[in-house]
């Protein structure tokens, strides 16, 4: 593999230069193994980039700027750009809140030269998905206005406390934007406020988007197909490095626990989240989470107390984000020559097919490539280190 230093992830991103040479037949003349190999290598490479515990912006506030102009009705993504986008966003939102439980997202539409906020910054993903699901019948009209969208997002992000990480993600189907003023001023303002703007283009590269992303330390990418699109979206799931001007502070938070009054049944009460809605959830229930400061009741966490403004979370919510900060150490690839006969974690027998095995620098155990990827992508805990009394706490002490 000669393209080891290549900054691009996939072979096809490097364009039309001898793509056929990267594919090799295996001993039996099959291509599949070698394609699978390439995919795994790409995954490993991405893993390797993630290392290093730089400061991350953990309390993310992200505005999603969604192009809903005429260009989104194009059918180059199946069935249409808009429907494909909505489907992917649904998965994205779920994953985003899974990985960043104390973060918030808002959604703004760009349509017919106007911007419309369809969903306020909030941490409840079900609400966003509901809003998105109504979108697929929306009329796709006119041209988008990037500037209006950015200004609207900025006006909301401005108000946030200084420790919050502010981000904008633009999904742009159109090649043009119809703006009321000079967009470079808007970009300048965004830069001043430390808002990180990333753009995913569905058509072709546009100078103004490139400018926007470059100036604000964001990423600008053009999709190749729907798989690539999904990949690019999912890059946004991991928290970005903290912006320079981001101040750090201690934030007061409440950790409500379910009240446990021995013997007596709890009275039926209304929770604050459903108190003013007429939907199914608004029923009297017993049990729930009580704000430790003002004793308002909520039916789910995380939430910001409506009465006293305290952020209410449960400890596992915070714990969900710890792996970004304390990732498992990257394994070292070594050639296999019978160091061990079985993968430490999954008990797979090493055979002739395993040319490389992976060695943990801390616990010195050997793993197979599948476990390497599983440990670093999903588990975030090295099974070798975690079963060794000398190393199991290494993530904390570092």
């Amino acid at each position, binding site marked *: 593999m000669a393209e080891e230093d290549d900054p691009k992830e996939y072979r096809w991103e490097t364009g039309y230069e001898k793509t056929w040479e990267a594919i090799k037949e295996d001993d039996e003349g099959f291509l599949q193994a070698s394609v699978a190999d390439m995919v795994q290598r790409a995954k490993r490479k991405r893993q390797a980039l993630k290392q290093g515990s730089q400061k991350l912006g953990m309390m993310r506030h992200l505005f999603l700027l969604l192009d809903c102009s005429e260009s989104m009705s194009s059918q180059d993504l199946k069935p249409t750009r808009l429907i494909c986008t909505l489907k992917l966003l649904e998965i994205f939102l779920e994953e985003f809140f899974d990985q960043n439980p104390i973060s918030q997202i808002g959604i703004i539409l760009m349509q017919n030269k106007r911007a419309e906020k369809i969903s306020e910054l909030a941490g409840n993903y079900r609400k966003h998905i509901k809003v998105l699901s109504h979108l697929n019948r929306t009329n796709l009209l006119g041209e988008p206005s990037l500037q209006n969208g950015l200004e609207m997002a900025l006006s909301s992000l401005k108000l946030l406390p200084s420790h919050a990480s502010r981000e904008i993600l633009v999904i742009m189907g159109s090649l043009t934007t119809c703006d009321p003023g000079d967009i470079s001023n808007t970009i300048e303002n965004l830069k001043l406020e430390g808002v990180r703007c990333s753009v995913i283009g569905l058509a072709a590269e546009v100078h103004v988007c490139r400018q926007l992303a470059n100036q604000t330390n964001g990423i600008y990418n053009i999709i190749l197909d729907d798989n690539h699109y999904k990949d690019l979206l999912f890059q946004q799931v991991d928290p970005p490095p903290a912006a320079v001007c981001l101040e750090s502070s201690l934030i007061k938070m409440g950790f409500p626990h379910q009240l446990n009054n021995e013997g007596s049944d709890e009275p039926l009460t209304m929770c604050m989240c459903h108190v003013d809605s007429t939907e199914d959830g608004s029923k009297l229930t017993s049990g729930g989470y009580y704000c430790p400061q003002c004793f308002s009741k909520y039916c789910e966490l995380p939430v910001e107390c409506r009465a006293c403004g305290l952020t209410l979370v449960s400890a596992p919510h915070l714990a969900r984000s710890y792996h970004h900060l304390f990732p498992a150490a990257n394994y070292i690839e070594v050639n296999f020559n019978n160091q061990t006969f079985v993968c430490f974690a999954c008990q797979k027998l090493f055979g002739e097919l395993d040319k490389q095995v992976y060695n943990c620098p801390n616990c010195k155990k050997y793993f197979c490539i599948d476990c390497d990827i599983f440990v670093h992508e999903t588990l975030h805990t090295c099974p070798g280190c975690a079963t*060794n009394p000398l190393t199991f706490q290494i993530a904390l002490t570092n």
Partner: protein
Amino acid sequence: MNNIVLPDETQTDSSSDDETSLVVVILDSNPGQKMLRDSPHVLTHCVDSIIAFANSHLMQKAQNKLAIMACHSKTSQFIYPGQGKHTDVRQVDGQYEVFTAVEKITKKNLAKVLTADSSTVTKESLLAGAIAMALCYISRLQRTKPPGATLNCRILVVTGSSCSASQYMNYMNVFFTAQKQNVVIDVCALDQHLSLLQQGCDITNGLYLKVPQLQGLLQYLLWVFLPEPPIREKLVLPPPLKVDYRAACFCHRQLIEIGYVCSVCLSIFCRFSPICTTCHTVFKMPALPAVKPKKKKKI
């Protein structure tokens, strides 16, 4: 055309028949745990109960799978199915030969683990690591299963040791992974109440049971943990206890209701301090964060 009712649609709920279910039993065999230090022979009783439980699981369906792990203070190992084929085990009595094999292999490998590690004994069993290994094992089976097959997995932890906050991060990582992979974690506590593992059960929809008396261990295992999750909802089982999700502060390890969280590394502190002990960030003065949220409030 549309009002034709296709006749056999009602017959499709036999789905549970063609699913394979895997149980990974993690047995805490650490001789340092309090229960075993007091009376070492308890272990034999536990192992017998667990083997009987494991065989009952295999008895449910022909395609059911089983793995048993021993978790020690220094290492964790798979003791069943172990390496290699075991065609040399033959019946000695009327027991089904697969069950005989489970019993023999488990006991043989457990003895190996116990004799290999007799030097210094620490009290803490590294259960989180054992669960991590089990998850890797499960994910390999999920990867290599034939197309079209469904494999339901759960992990049963049987332990008498206490759980300490030092493994907190590892525990949380394995719980969330299990939740994502649809692996149910059941916990059977033999001696002490385990609040962290109880959280894991709650997160993964598993059952948590603190056994009142060890004598009846097998009965508890069979009554509570043998039914698979889909069958559990059809049975009346002990209701889930309310789980205490309060956080423990990083400075004093005390459970707190209101605390301060570092915006950079999310460490939890019980009072304001000017510098974060985990990531060494210097903080601004405390007045601001108390005021700002009120402005932000949008109703």
